[in-house]
């Protein structure tokens, strides 16, 4: 009885979680000019969005930032994840707290702090500043994902490699990376997604004249929801889903083929 009730309730929660996302996607295919007046199925707003330079410029910026951010975050985050587990405790604890802080600080506070810093440092706002700011919390995301896997992994081979006189670099390349690659890739895909979807940080540090997709959507909303905005949003959703799905598959396959150590 309790089980049935809970099951029914949970089904409703799933409806609640997915209905809004579905609504955006469905209305993106509305052929009419008015968002909420259904006028037949059409993909014309997708092509309108793809021919709108405001959308395509913002899209290009978002991709560039997200990709650059993912690469840097992977390097920094992976190095951090390798160093952390066996670090001296009085150093490790504050460092871990710092990593957590970068993830829990309200994003608006982080956004304005970055804005003040770049202004004071005389760095012109633009794509570069967005990229720099995004790396801060995405390096932490990668570090957490990679570390979870690294700690769960047998370390015998690393120890043997170090014992035999290999340096950290060759040990990493020949011993650790082959097994850690799925986690690094998954962390990178998540970093890509978080950067691609980021609003707050970008809102404060893009400066005039440049835009990212979330910023484009936000500023368009001032004039209400238009079919072009819906089509753009549907494309963002598709890209995010593809990237998250890929991360999931990569982690899962790695988890199953490696003996017992789940990511």
């Amino acid at each position: 009885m309790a089980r049935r009730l809970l099951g029914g309730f949970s089904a409703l929660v799933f409806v609640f979680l997915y209905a809004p996302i579905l609504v955006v996607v469905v209305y993106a295919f509305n052929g009419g000019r008015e968002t909420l007046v259904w006028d037949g199925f059409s993909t014309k707003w997708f092509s309108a969005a793809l021919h709108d330079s405001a959308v395509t410029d913002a899209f290009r910026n978002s991709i560039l930032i997200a990709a650059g951010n993912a690469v840097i975050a992977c390097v920094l985050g992976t190095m951090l994840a390798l160093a952390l587990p066996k670090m001296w405790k009085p150093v490790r604890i504050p460092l871990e707290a710092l990593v957590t802080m970068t993830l829990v600080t309200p994003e608006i506070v982080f956004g304005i702090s970055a804005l003040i810093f770049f202004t004071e440092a005389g760095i012109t706002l633009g794509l570069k500043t967005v990229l720099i700011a995004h790396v801060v919390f995405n390096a932490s995301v990668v570090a957490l994902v990679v570390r979870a896997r690294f700690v769960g992994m047998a370390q015998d081979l690393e120890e043997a490699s170090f014992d035999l006189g290999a340096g950290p670099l060759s040990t990493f390349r020949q011993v650790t990376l082959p097994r850690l690659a799925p986690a690094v890739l998954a962390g990178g895909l998540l970093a890509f997604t978080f950067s691609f979807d980021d609003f707050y940080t970008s809102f404060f540090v893009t400066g005039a004249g440049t835009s990212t997709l979330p910023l484009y959507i936000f500023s368009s909303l001032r004039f209400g929801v238009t079919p072009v905005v819906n089509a753009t949003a549907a494309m963002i959703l598709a890209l995010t889903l593809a990237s998250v799905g890929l991360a999931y598959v990569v982690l899962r396959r790695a988890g199953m083929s490696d003996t017992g150590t789940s990511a």
Partner: protein
Amino acid sequence: MTRPGSGRWGRRARSGGPRYPGWLALPALAWYAAFFLIPLGFVVAYSFAALSGYSDIVFAWNLDNYRALWDPLYGDVFRRTLGLSLFGTLTTLLIGFPFAYWIARYARRKTLVLLFVVIPFWTSFLIRTYAWLIILDPQFPLFRVVHVDLLFSRPAVYIGVAYNYLPLMVLPLYAALERIDWSLVEAAQDLGDTPLRSFRRVTFPLALPGVIAGSLLVFIPLTGEYLIPAILGGNKTSYAGSLIAQQFTEVHDWPFGSAIAVVVIAAMTIVLLVFSTWANREASSRG
């Protein structure tokens, strides 16, 4: 093909063995210092500065910005923000707990179910928020039958908050509930406990770490929430986040905006400290 890493002995904790050197953490640490810690330091410094002319900053090192905040007008803003954060935490807990309980205890194919909880969390926050602009529009099919206009109102903001933050609550709740040995609960009931009593005495204490983690994950970001009120509240009701954003994007009073941000951070730190002290005491008293 042989796979490396097939050792079964790796879970042993080893402290003295060879390892990756600690300096590997330096690049990330430098990045955090330069682009996170120092900028936060600037926010604190700015909160003691003053505006001179239109946008020049003078470091006056006084409390004027904080004094200006000591005004019933801003008191209302902070009270509203606290109300929003508490509402969001309680609502997501009330919806999230039974949901996470069902996943942890009854759901088949848990990984897949969990993936479907995580997907909305990973899709754009902005899109999930503006989706409600469409749903709450009086022209939306549902509201052509039921005549309610919630758009650009406080209820709209509350709905958006409950919706957006739900996955953040469900995940830690699930992580805690998933570890529960349900035979304990059954044993308690076999020995005569009512379901309610066994829930209170067995399930809830075991789930408490998840409740705390989830509450913090929802409460803390909510104290700085700006996007949801901006989109669904039509800017009619002002929250701490809206006030900060306004100082930086419209009014250009960065020192005052920084002071508000410092108050938010301070409140957040107090909540964190109180919560973690309480959680530690709770944990140690239960052994």
